[in-house]
């Protein structure tokens, strides 16, 4: 069981403004699906970039299993909103790409890529060009490619943000399914409250102005979704609606104190 820790990290882009993140602490276990939610500009992407090793904290440390890590890689893989697929490769070779970096032989890496593509429901799109794929299919390829790197943690920065509503809810269930089957820890960034409630084993509300995690929730709807209950029915539950109201209030309130400050 791997564990990724942000040990009271601060981040300052050196623009002279207040730090984007101010002494934020976060512990992520491999069996968790942690969702970070907050208004845009709250520092969600910055938090993920710290966790991924794309930027180094100005204060504090990033730890993997208790040991400090720096730089990207090392069991942490990122899925971006803009899929970041390689258009000169077809779907299969995009997924096989991380294995190519490790110099896995062609036949073996393609076999593994095929397995991962069917895990994300794209068994029949292997030889398709990237630009022939819809937004949702591209994100599936992106997720399969990330899994090919054999990560312990999947870091997802609003991967469903650009999708239409229908595709988005299909992809939410797929994400949850992949998480359950692959055994990776997930850190998902979103500004959709419903998405956070449906998927997260833990939800962190990020306060604006670098003030860190404002509140933490442990909703159990993901387990029920995995067990076969429908997303529509879950969203109508009184406890779902109550939590949703609470989250909305928290995020809006955060905004109000931000304005007052």
């Amino acid at each position, binding site marked *: 069981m791997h564990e990724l820790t942000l040990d009271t990290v601060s981040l300052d882009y050196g623009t002279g403004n207040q730090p984007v993140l101010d002494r934020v602490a976060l512990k992520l276990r491999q069996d968790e699906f942690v969702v970070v939610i907050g208004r845009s500009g709250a520092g969600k992407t910055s938090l993920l970039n710290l966790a*991924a*090793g*794309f930027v180094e904290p100005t204060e504090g440390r990033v730890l993997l299993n208790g040991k400090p890590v720096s*730089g*990207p*890689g*090392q069991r*942490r*893989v*990122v899925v*971006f909103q*803009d899929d*970041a697929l*390689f*258009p*000169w490769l077809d779907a299969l070779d995009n997924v096989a*790409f*991380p294995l*190519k*970096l*490790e110099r896995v032989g062609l036949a073996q890496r393609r076999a593994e890529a095929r397995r991962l593509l069917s895990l994300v429901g794209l068994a029949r799109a292997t030889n*398709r*060009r*990237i*630009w*022939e*794929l*819809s*937004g*949702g*299919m591209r994100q599936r390829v992106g997720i399969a*490619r990330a899994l*090919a*790197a054999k990560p312990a943690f999947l*870091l997802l920065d609003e991967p469903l943000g*650009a*999708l*239409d509503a*229908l*595709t988005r809810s*299909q992809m939410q269930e797929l994400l949850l399914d992949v998480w359950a089957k692959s055994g990776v820890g997930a850190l998902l960034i979103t500004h959709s409250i419903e998405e956070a409630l449906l998927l997260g084993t833990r939800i962190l509300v990020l306060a604006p102005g670098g003030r860190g995690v404002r509140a933490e929730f442990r909703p159990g709807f993901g387990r029920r979704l995995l067990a076969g209950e429908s997303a529509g029915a879950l969203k109508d539950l009184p406890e779902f609606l109550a939590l949703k109201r609470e989250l909305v209030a928290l995020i809006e309130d955060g905004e109000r104190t931000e304005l007052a400050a």
Partner: protein
Amino acid sequence: MTIETRALLSHPSLTSPEAEGRPAPPRRPRRKTRLLPVLVSTATIVSFLLLWWLASALALVSPVFLPSPAAVAISLGSLVTTGFVDATLAEHAAASLWRIFGALFFAVLIGVPAGLVIGLSRIGKALFDPVVEFLRPLPPLAYLPLIIIWFGIGEPSKIIVIALAMLPPVIISTAAGVKTVPKDQVRAARSFGASGLQVLSHVILPNTLPGILTGIRIALGAGWSTLVAAELVAANRGLGFMIQSASQFLVTDVVIAGILVIALIAFLLEGLARVVEARLIPWASHRN
């Protein structure tokens, strides 16, 4: 079309969102709108030939200045079979093409790495920019005499001059290509554990390829104009040399035939570049 406009046209906000699992239908070629420009262009060429024929048929201009289309066609035929100044047309063309592609080889060999360095590092840019900015506005003929003093009147001088003319476009387009590399692709590769060298070869180079090919296309154009001039000085083969000799003897039909052949080769090279682009980087027009 520049890479920037291509990127702009394929920007997601300009394309409609597609339903899940249903890719965009293949674009149907629009026959009517394509046919019209071709017809107009053909009409331009035909009327140009007609005017030319009329001018010489009515003897408006002396044949010494403007031979008839028929005379040019005949001289083209004899250029192919018996040749002019000790070489057939094919031999002249081969000499010129050899210089062009020899120069292109060196321009790419030096220009692509230099462009990569400029695009990738601020220090590299500071290092090479003065050289590029010095070379770029200089007409190659201005430094040809110096090259001849240094390297003599042989083949190397010609190739060096042409390569120097080709270098700026290759460098500039390569560097511009580096700027189009999506940051997230680099980050994705880094998170898969790619080394710096792997990022360069697997992410940056493929993304830069469209820029490099654009540079090569521009370089071929620059190369042709320099070639003809370079062959005016101390050559005994080549299309430029052929035209120059013909003009000295007032063999105007060969001059015109030579010009037409140069235009034709340039046109074919442009077509070849397009084919190469379509095969090598079909994705370039689709990237976002």
